[in-house]
C-alpha cells in the first residue's frame, strides 16, 4: 500500500462552534464560509497540501454533511487519492455499540486503527477552523531537531488576551516547563495555537492511557499535555510568526473578515507558492450592472450587483438587486438582497433571501446576524 508515511495530519472538525450562533446552527464551524469563497477548513487543508502532507484524517461529529460534501475526496486541495488523500472519520458503531467522541483526545483514540494503517513516524494534530498560513514542515523539522516527543506550535499574543489561551512557559532551549489552560493570571504571553506534533508511538501510548482514565476529559490541552509535562517528558515549543486566528465569535468573525477590505490586510489570501485552495463550483463571472455602485468591496464569482454595495464582502453567487443597499456587511454565499432592501453592519447567512424593502441592521448597533437559508420578509421573519 505505498510507502511508510513520515507525517500524517489529524484534523479536528467535530465542533459546533456555538459562539458563532446562527452561522453554525446547521453546519459545523469548519464549514463556515470565509472571505466569500473559502470555508474555514480550507486554510488547514491548504496548509497541509502546501506542506507536502498527503494524508489527512478529518474527525467530524457535529452536522457533518456540508463539510463532508465540501471535502469530497480532497482533490480540490491537491490531495492525491492513491497513496493518501483526505479521509472523513465520523464516530462509528462497533460490536459493542456506538460511541460519540468525548473530547479531542478521545476522537483520535477512537481512530488509532487509522493511524496504524498509515503507520507514520509523526502525527500532526490540527483544528479545522483556524485562519492562518503555515508551513508545517518547519515545525516538523524543529520537532525532529529538538528530539522531543511532542511539539506545540505557539505564538505571542497580547497580554490582555492571554487568559483566553493555553499559555506556556519554556526554558532557553524551547523546552516547555509549564502549561496552563486559560489561566486567570498568565505567567507568559506565549499561547498554544492548538497545533501539535507527536511521535506516533508516544501518542498512541498516551491516548490508550488517557482512555482508561475515568477522570480525564480526554482533551489534548486539558489532559494529555499536562500529563506529559507532569511526567517530565520533553515537549518542545515551536514559535510561529505570522498571522493566526481562531475566529470563534461573531465580533471576531466580522472584524477578521472586514480586515480583508483594509489597505494592507493582515491575512493575505494570495500567494502563488503557498496558495489557499478551495472547492468551488463553477459560477459565471461577476456581473456589475448599468446602475450599480460598488465601493471598496470583495466580490466573488457568480455575483450580480445591480444595487449599491459599500465596504462589504459578497460571497459567491450573491445577488444585490436594483435599489438595494449593502453597507459594512458580509453576505455569505448565495444570498439575495432584493429591490430596495437595506443591509447595514450585518452578516447574512448562506442562501438567505432578504426580501424587498426589508431593513437589516444599523450602523451604530451590534452586528446583525441572519442565519442560513432564511427568507426575511417585510414585517416579520419566516424560515
Amino acid at each position, binding site marked *: 500500500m505505498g510507502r511508510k508515511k513520515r507525517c500524517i495530519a489529524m484534523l479536528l472538525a467535530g465542533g459546533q462552534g456555538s459562539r458563532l450562533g446562527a452561522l453554525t446552527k446547521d453546519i459545523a464551524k469548519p464549514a463556515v464560509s470565509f472571505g466569500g469563497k473559502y470555508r474555514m477548513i480550507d486554510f488547514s487543508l491548504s496548509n497541509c497540501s502546501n506542506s507536502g502532507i498527503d494524508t489527512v484524517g478529518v474527525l467530524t461529529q457535529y452536522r457533518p454533511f456540508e463539510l463532508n460534501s465540501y471535502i469530497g475526496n480532497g482533490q480540490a486541495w491537491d490531495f492525491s487519492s492513491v497513496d493518501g488523500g483526505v479521509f472523513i472519520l465520523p464516530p462509528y458503531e462497533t460490536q459493542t455499540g456506538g460511541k460519540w467522541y468525548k473530547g479531542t483526545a478521545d476522537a483520535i483514540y477512537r481512530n488509532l486503527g487509522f493511524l496504524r494503517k498509515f503507520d507514520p513516524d509523526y502525527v500532526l494534530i490540527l483544528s479545522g477552523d483556524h485562519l492562518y498560513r503555515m508551513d508545517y514542515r518547519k515545525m516538523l523539522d524543529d520537532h525532529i531537531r529538538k528530539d522531543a516527543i511532542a511539539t506545540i506550535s505557539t505564538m505571542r499574543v497580547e497580554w490582555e488576551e492571554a487568559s483566553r489561551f493555553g499559555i506556556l512557559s519554556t526554558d532557553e532551549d524551547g523546552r516547555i516547563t509549564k502549561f496552563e489552560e486559560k489561566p486567570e493570571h498568565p505567567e507568559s504571553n506565549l499561547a498554544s495555537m492548538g497545533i501539535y506534533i507527536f511521535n506516533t508511538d508516544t501518542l498512541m501510548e498516551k491516548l490508550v492511557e488517557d482512555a482508561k482514565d475515568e477522570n480525564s476529559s480526554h482533551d489534548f490541552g486539558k489532559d494529555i499535555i499536562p500529563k506529559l509535562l507532569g511526567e517530565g517528558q520533553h515537549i518542545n515549543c515551536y514559535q510561529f510568526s505570522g498571522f493566526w486566528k481562531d475566529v470563534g465569535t461573531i465580533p471576531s468573525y466580522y472584524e477578521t473578515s472586514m480586515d480583508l477590505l483594509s489597505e494592507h490586510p493582515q491575512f493575505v489570501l494570495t500567494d502563488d507558492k503557498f496558495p*489557499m485552495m478551495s472547492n468551488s463550483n*463553477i459560477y*459565471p*463571472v461577476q*456581473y*456589475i*450592472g448599468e446602475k450599480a455602485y*460598488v*465601493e471598496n468591496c470583495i466580490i*466573488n464569482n457568480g455575483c450580480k450587483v445591480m444595487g449599491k454595495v459599500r465596504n462589504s464582502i459578497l460571497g459567491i453567487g450573491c445577488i444585490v438587486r436594483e435599489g438595494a443597499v449593502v453597507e459594512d456587511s458580509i453576505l455569505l454565499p448565495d444570498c439575495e438582497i432584493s429591490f430596495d432592501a437595506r443591509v447595514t453592519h450585518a452578516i447574512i447567512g448562506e442562501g438567505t433571501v432578504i426580501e424587498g424593502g426589508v431593513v437589516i441592521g444599523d450602523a451604530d448597533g451590534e452586528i446583525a446576524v441572519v442565519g442560513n437559508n432564511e427568507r426575511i420578509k417585510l414585517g416579520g421573519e419566516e424560515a
Partner: protein
Amino acid sequence: MKDVIGLISANFTTEDMQGLSDERSIASMPFAGRYRLVDFALSNMINAGITAVGLVTPYKFRSLMDHIGTGSAWMLDRKKGGLYILPGSTYGMSSRSDRFLLCDIRQNDIFLRRSTSDYVLLTASNIIWNIDFRPFIRAHMESGADITMLTQRGVRKNPHGRKVHKEGEKVLGISTGVDMEDDVFLDTFLISRELLLQFLDWYSARDYLDIFDILKDDYEKMDIRTWYYDGYARMVFSIDNYFNANMDLLDMDINGAIFDEHNPIRTKVQDCIPARMYPESSVRNSLISSGCAIWGEVDGSVLFRGVTVEEGAIVRNSVIMQSCIIKSGAIVKDAVIDRNNLIGKGMIIKGSSNDIYVMRKEQRIARRAGS
C-alpha cells in the same frame, strides 16, 4: 442519453481573428472572463446527458489541452465513455474553415466503431449558446431523418456562416455566407452512427472535404431535415463576432440565459482570489473576474482573471484578457487586449466601435509566465 455520442470539431480556424488565434485554436479562445469557447459545446453535450464525447483537436492543441485537462470539469473523467481526445488532420493548420472534415473523422473512426450508440451529435467548437439538445435529439429520433441540421434565423450578415437552402422541409444544399433572415446552419447536426461510417466508406477518396460538401449530390436522395432553435446562439469566426458576443453578455437577459444555473456552462476550475474593488474605483456595466484589482474606472467591459486597473486608468467598451495591467492614467477604449499585456502609464489605446483595436498577447512587456 446513452443512445447518442458527441463529436466536437475543434480543428478549424479563420484568418479573421487578427492574430488572437495564432497560437491557439478558436476552440480555446478565452471568453466572457473565465471560459473558453469549447466550454459551450462540452457543457451542452453533458447537460443533455451525453457521456461519451470525442474532441477533434487542432494541430496546435497545447492551449486546448491545458484547458481541457482531465475532462473532470465536464464530468467526463469516466470509466464508461468519457472524453476522447482525437488528433485532427494537419489540414486544419491551413486557415480553412471547414468544420467537419472527412479526414478528421476517418482518422478517428475507431471512436465511432467502438461505440454501441445509435446516433452521433456533431457540433462545432465556436458557438456561444446554452442549448438543451434533448428536444433536438428527440425530434431527430422520431422523424427518422437521415440527418437533422440545427438552424436558426440569421440575425446579422456573416460571410463565414452557412446558409441552408430548403424546399418545404427538404434541405437542398448549403452555401457559404449568410444574411439577416436566412436559415443559418448552426454547424450542429445529428446522424446515425452507421450512416456516418458509411460516408467514410463511400467517400474514401475525398478526405479533404467537409462532410456537407460531399453530400452535394446526395441531398436529393437523402432525408435531410432541419430543426429550428430560437434561443441565443452566436458563432465566432472573426474578431467582430468575438467582440460582439462578449459584449452581448453585458445584457442581463442574455447573460442569464447563457449562464443558467440549472444548465451550467462548465469550465476548468482555477483557484483565484475574489475580485477586489478599491475605494476610489468606479465599475459599471461590466464583467469583472476573480483576481481583478480595480482602482480606476471600468465601464461596458469584460475583464478576465487577474486584471489590474490602476488609479485613474479608464477601460471602456473593451475586452481585457488575463493578467493584463492597465497602469495609472492609461485609457483603453474599443479594444481587445490579449493576455499578459501591460498598458503603460498614461498610454492611450483606442479603437472605434466599428473597428476594434486588437493587441496580441504579451506585446508590451517581456514574456511572462502564461499562455
